[in-house]
């Protein structure tokens, strides 16, 4: 029984970390109408960045965020400016293909630099553990959860308590109307995409610390993130958090009580089952956006 409780705690903690990785995805969708398949690869690239900073310059991964967040933010700016902005019609579909291509290119570049052996980010707080109901939870989960809460809190403040956020939410409701009201739609789009990409710096650092990764990991990761985002309801930040925590608690319980082999299967299976009865996800508006 205590094992189950422990797995619930672990599920909540890792759910927070996954939500942090997924929040940029749902934000980009809401504001830019873009499904960013490259988000998974951004996370992996950020993980490599943290890894390289620590390995070659001996910069602590947490401290390194001061460098990696701006770098990823810039990458987001570049990608939005060079590719996403060019998509005028059929944005949802074409963005999927364009961002997939971006992911492939990044994967190729990372593969050229680091080859395909698995890497992981080490630090004292990755190896140290705290006992929680009979499970030994690495400190990084606690730090990661705290970091996720802080960063998502900041995003929440930005979206719901700032002038920028007001413009952003107006765009989510109606892009054309927002543009007519004098909102600089292009600028908000670019910044949103860059912020979403910047957040992957933190997500990547945590991802690299909680598990070994290589460039190929991005496919598995993006599938999970997309699943979290549609279960929560595309475009809903709160939904992504609830879905992420819910799914990870569920799969952790399955892993502890039954077998870890099937936990990932149920990660996808539960979502698909939910979507049969609630096609718009937990917090999505029913057939909100006709595509």
């Amino acid at each position, binding site marked *: 029984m205590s094992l189950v409780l422990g797995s619930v705690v672990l599920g909540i903690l890792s759910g927070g970390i996954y939500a942090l990785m997924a929040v940029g995805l749902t934000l980009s969708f809401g504001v830019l109408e873009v499904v960013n398949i490259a988000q998974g690869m951004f996370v992996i690239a950020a993980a490599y960045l943290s890894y390289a900073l620590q390995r070659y310059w001996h910069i602590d991964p947490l401290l390194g965020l001061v460098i990696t967040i701006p770098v990823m933010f810039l990458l987001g700016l570049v990608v939005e400016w060079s590719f996403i902005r060019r998509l005028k019609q059929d944005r949802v579909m074409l963005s999927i293909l364009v961002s997939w291509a971006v992911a492939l290119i990044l994967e190729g570049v990372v593969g050229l630099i680091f080859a395909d052996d698995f890497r992981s980010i080490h630090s004292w707080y990755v190896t140290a553990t705290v006992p929680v109901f009979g499970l030994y939870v690495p400190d990084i989960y606690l730090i990661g959860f705290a970091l996720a809460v802080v960063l998502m809190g900041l995003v929440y403040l930005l979206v719901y308590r700032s002038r920028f956020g007001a413009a952003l939410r107006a765009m989510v409701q109606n892009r054309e109307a927002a543009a007519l009201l004098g909102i600089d739609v292009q600028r908000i789009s670019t910044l949103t995409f860059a912020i979403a990409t910047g957040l992957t710096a933190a997500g990547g650092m945590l991802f690299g610390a909680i598990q070994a990764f290589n460039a190929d990991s991005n496919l598995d990761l993006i599938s999970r993130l997309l699943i979290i985002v549609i279960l929560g309801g595309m475009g809903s930040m709160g939904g992504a958090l609830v879905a992420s925590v819910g799914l990870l608690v569920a799969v952790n319980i399955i892993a502890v009580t039954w077998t870890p082999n099937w936990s990932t299967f149920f990660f*996808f299976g539960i979502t698909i089952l939910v979507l049969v009865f609630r096609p718009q996800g937990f917090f999505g508006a029913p057939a909100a956006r006709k595509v």
Partner: protein
Amino acid sequence: MKRPSTWLIAAVALLAALVYPFVFSSTEATTIGFFALLYVGLAASWNINGYTGYISLGHSAFFGIGAYTIALFATRLGLQGGYGLFAVALLGGLVAGVAALPLGFIALRVRTMHSFVIITIAYVMMLQLLAYNLESITNGPNGLGVPQPAWSGAFFNIPFYFAALVLAVGTVLLSAWIRGSRFGLGLMAIRDDEDKAAGVGVDTWKYKLTAYVISAIPIGIGGAVYAYFASYIYPQTVFDPTIDLGIVLSVFLGGTGTILGPIVGALIIQPAQQLLTLYTGNLGTAGWDLLLLGALFLVVILLMPSGIVPSLVERARRTSVREAVTKADETTPGAQTAVGGNGTS
């Protein structure tokens, strides 16, 4: 496919495909030919579902189902390798079609494009996990073998090449027939505006599901033929998102919703990809192929979002209009103002 010139081009292309393995008989050349034709079949098949505008990134699920069907069937029944196994490949298509019914049922319930795409990606992941985990059936990560035929040397590839050719031609004909039919018209109406299509009496739900199931069948056959050719399959080699990438890239390069598009796309992408892995593989730098593939994909989508075939057709149409206009100018001096005066009227 009505004008005689179309038939002529088709006949020449078919003839070229028939003599190709005898002109270029090296194993490398026939392997490239096999993959090119296999992907013509896969892409044309995928495009049947693509007529509805619902982009599936998970049709490798059916590829894998077909592959595992032939492997399981042949090993369990102790079948020998030989021409007979190509008949078993058809069974792979059948099983894929049956599996597509519930999968399509669920994926199409979510009416938004993005959710559909994401669910189809999840299907590949789920089936791959099933293949890993159901060890008693699939032999898990160790994979399954398919009994091999006794063909030897350079001849080995020839039967596979022609099997892929039959699949390619059959699927293209099926796709062309559907496109010209009332059913195909309904599918394209769904692509243009699903609500309006329903409004004018298209049973959109039934149409979409039918297209989804039909498009799974040739892909299942293709997976089975591939498994037989490859002789050994693993969960990650047949339930593989890069197969989806190859299919989707081919269709988009050639032009979605057209009959010729997937053919042209696959005939460009596959040989390029095969040659690329052949050469970059030797350099030991596996990153280059992804990099180039991604760059090609970007160029295609950003510069020719509708694909090669529609872009060329559009260009040809414009040239012929321009020619007609020039001709008109020469005969009637006043025509210039009549044609150019659109803006003022």
